[in-house]
């Protein structure tokens, strides 16, 4: 065998992979890891930026104890939980219905058009969703009231009433996130091998049984992902709510992240706000682990 002519690999050294990864790692450090560590450190200090003369003394777990005994924090957390259990079932149900429709054979062009349309709400910034929500639910010229009028119902001051405002932000969240559920479920449905679906169709003519016993197992990983992402997302849902209601009226839409923002950037008590944020992070991790343990099942 002829000997290989060894060309020196001048451009590629031991550190080359490092340089390629460096920009991403640096960015992540800068915008992800540094702020998290900063928040962690801050959460153990008294850190009120309106009183810089007091300094930022280290106070141990005092911020955490304050947060845990703060009834407003708990009620905003409870409200966030209520929001989550309001929107998620609707998003899952609607998402599944859309996915099942798109999974049906036939109407290829329309379906691919629909699939593309699904991405639009996902690609919309939360703040813009909030702006759209403000227009839709405007008492005087919003389409929501127009819609009610068509069916003979009187108009309604959505954003001015506690239950109306809560419903309005829930509807906007459902609008934005149902397509995400639909896409995840659609991916799950297309994971079911064609012959397995056909084998089941030979054994049952019930669409519901087919969904429950054959397709659902393939949807569980996606469902877990949806629940984890949505719970993390609802816990930090801020922009849309802030633009639409600023947490009001009263505290009707004062979700936990809106409350934290108020503590941090209205009262400027960054120490307490950081402690709250870290607690939310821990909560998110616990919830995710729970979902994975209870729900997640690989089919194969």
């Amino acid at each position, binding site marked *: 065998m002829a000997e290989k002519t060894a060309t020196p690999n001048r451009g590629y050294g031991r550190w080359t992979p490092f340089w390629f990864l460096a920009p991403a790692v640096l960015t992540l450090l800068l915008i992800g890891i540094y702020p998290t560590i900063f928040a962690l450190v801050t959460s153990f200090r008294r850190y009120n930026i309106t009183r810089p003369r007091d300094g930022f003394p280290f106070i141990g777990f005092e911020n955490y104890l304050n947060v845990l005994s703060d009834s407003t924090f708990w009620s905003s957390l409870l409200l966030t939980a209520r929001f989550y259990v309001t929107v998620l079932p609707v998003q899952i149900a609607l998402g599944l219905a859309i996915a099942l429709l798109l999974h049906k054979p036939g109407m290829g062009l329309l379906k691919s058009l629909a699939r593309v349309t699904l991405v639009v709400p996902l690609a919309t910034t939360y703040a813009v969703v909030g702006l759209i929500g403000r227009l839709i639910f405007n008492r005087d010229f919003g389409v929501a009231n127009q819609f009610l009028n068509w069916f003979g119902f009187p108009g309604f001051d959505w954003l001015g009433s506690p239950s109306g405002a809560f419903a309005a932000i829930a509807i906007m969240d459902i609008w934005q996130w149902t397509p995400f559920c639909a896409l995840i479920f659609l991916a799950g449905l297309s994971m079911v091998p064609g012959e397995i679906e056909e084998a089941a169709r030979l*054994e049952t003519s019930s669409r519901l049984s087919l969904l429950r016993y054959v397709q659902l197992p393939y949807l569980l990983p996606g469902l877990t992902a949806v629940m984890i992402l949505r719970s993390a997302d609802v816990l930090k849902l801020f922009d849309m709510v802030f633009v639409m209601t600023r947490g009001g009226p009263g505290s009707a839409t004062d979700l936990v992240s809106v409350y934290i923002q108020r503590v941090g950037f209205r009262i400027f008590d960054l120490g307490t706000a950081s402690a709250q944020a870290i607690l939310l992070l821990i909560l998110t991790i616990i919830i995710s682990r729970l979902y994975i343990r209870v729900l997640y099942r690989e*089919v194969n």
Partner: protein
Amino acid sequence: MSFLKLDGIKKAFGDAEVIKGVSFAAEKGEFVVFVGPSGCGKSTLLRMIAGLEDVSQGTLYIDGKNVTFEEPAKREVSMVFQSYALYPHMSVFENMAFGLRMNKQPEDQIKARVLEAARILQIEPLLDRKPRALSGGQRQRVAIGRSIVRHPKIFLFDEPLSNLDAELRTQMRVEIAKLHSNLGATMVYVTHDQVEAMTLADRIVVLRAGLVEQLGTPTELYDRPANTFVAGFIGSPKMNFLLATVTATDGNSLQLSHPAFAGGTLQLRRPAASEVRVGEKVSVGMRPEHLSLDPAKPLLSLSLDLQENLGGSTQIHARAAGEPITMVVPGRPDLSSGDAITAGIEPNNIYLFDESGLAIKG
């Protein structure tokens, strides 16, 4: 009334017509095999019987009932797929019980039927396992078991053995044949393997490009192929064809000429010889296993290209006036490439086909 009846069945995908009008009937308890090259529409036809594919035109009857537009589950047929199509998240027992559960059968009956099927297929020790913990052959048994427990009117098999290795394939083929005789069930079986077709079928339906080329028992297809396609498709190795010219004909014999014939001509007695005229071309078909080496009355003069030792027999690839000829002879003849050899055949074993490929009877 036949048990399974297809009446002018057609299927089109858009503008492409894949089944162009198929009619046939099968009796209760019959084993029918659809055979043909890939793309001939045999699987589509089977899937239409199952109801997994809509029928574009024509009528389908099962047990005297028009099921053309019936849902798959209501046709009381079961199907074994090429990929087995077991439910991956269910145990073997659950896989087999699924159809019965969906039919709301009482639990004790479900258990009895599954155990019965498991006993027949010798998969009792596997009942608690998931499909991923099974070998290909075991999966296939489970898939067949899932069919059996439902006591369907018709068993459908879509190339069920093509994912198995050669040895297992032979073994499962024998088991399917046994199963058929034990259950006395009506079975429709799709394959491109003509050995499976020959060994399993009561009747074979040979399909090509969406049309039935011939329908008959394996022996009929082998002995009296309707045309050159069936003649070439049934039998392994493939039948040899020589395109000869008719040089003389009288009432019951004809003379053919081709440079490959020893002496340039071949004299054949055929009662139907009057069907052909002098000057017409006919295909002379000879099965490799019918040709013998160095006979008393040589028919073909050949030059040997290659011989393959099959152990008990030898497959000879040779040329006769440029035309390839394959023959299978017993033992191991002492030959080498380039040797001039002669081959002969019983006149009764010579097949004749006219210019359009149709068999000349007689």
